[in-house]
């Protein structure tokens, strides 16, 4: 059964087995989408919100009319939930300790400690600046660079054609670079 058929069966019978199948299919994507909006270091909150999204979907399954794809409807709920959480929560960047900073990004044996420290500072600054971008740009950049998703995969997740995703990536990078320039952070 495809997603729409499962949703219709769930509406008709209320059988939790259909709901479990939908959760199984989409939980990973919902979690990654939410985390891409919340940002690095907030995995716990993202998992909690993923739960909230599926609880909400179960309660609102009667509102799914099948006019759009089920995944689009679901991901829209997840996106709104994450954006709403960000606006409600007092958002601070997670604290990166010395040890974590020393480990990120990937250590290269040939780098001296100074270079490693510089790279760690840049990585931290990049995440800081990502946090200041509009939700959509931050989400697309995180999905692409952090989660390793392809352009078509991101397109499915945010319900946008490939050309639009590429455009978001382009504009997101441009705005990120502008923020990094303002902070005096440059590529080494």
């Amino acid at each position: 059964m495809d997603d729409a058929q499962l949703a219709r069966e769930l509406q008709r019978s209320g059988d939790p087995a259909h709901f479990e199948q939908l959760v199984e299919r989409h939980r990973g994507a919902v979690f990654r989408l939410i985390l891409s909006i919340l940002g690095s270091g907030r995995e716990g909150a993202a998992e909690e919100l993923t739960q909230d999204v599926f609880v909400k979907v179960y309660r609102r399954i009667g509102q799914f009319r099948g006019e759009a794809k089920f995944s689009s409807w679901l991901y829209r709920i997840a996106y709104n939930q994450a954006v709403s959480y960000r606006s409600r929560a007092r958002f601070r960047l997670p604290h990166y300790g010395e040890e974590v900073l020393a480990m990120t990004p990937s250590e290269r044996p040939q780098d001296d400690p100074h270079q490693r420290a510089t790279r760690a500072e840049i990585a931290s600054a990049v995440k800081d600046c990502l946090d200041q971008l509009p939700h959509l740009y931050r989400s697309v950049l995180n999905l692409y660079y952090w989660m390793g998703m392809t352009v078509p995969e991101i397109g499915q997740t945010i319900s946008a054609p490939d050309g639009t995703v590429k455009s978001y990536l382009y504009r997101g990078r441009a705005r990120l670079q502008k923020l990094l320039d303002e902070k005096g952070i440059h590529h080494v």
Partner: protein
Amino acid sequence: MSELSRECEDFAGWLLESTESESPAWRDHLERCKGCRAQADAHSMLTSAFAAEPVPELSDAFESRLARRLAPELEIRPLAGWRRAAMVAYIVVSLILLGWSLRAVELPTIDLSAPWVPVAALVAVPLSLMLAIRVSGWLPAGLRPRGPGIVAA
């Protein structure tokens, strides 16, 4: 991206297919084009920033926690499918039996002015309703219990 030159569009496309941010083939263009230089720098810094960051996964406890949260809602399900058919059959059979028994049996006369009649009605009506809900698992949507969590209705 529509205002970009053909060369800039080609570079943006190349950037998405490459793990590098520079190539000898693009050196001249990057020296001339500030916008593409910024794209290359941002691409490089993003790649580097997330190089050691593991791709996050949900915890193993996700499903069991979700099942616990939904448990109150799953217990009482909307009247649908075979439950609806069973409920309709139950009502029809009950009415037929009631009609038949009323015709066959001479019922004792009840003094409706007796003080125990309204008391019995007050007890019997909600009790029978609760019994029907319990048997059928049905409850109007507005009265269904809400589980814990931060989800707004």
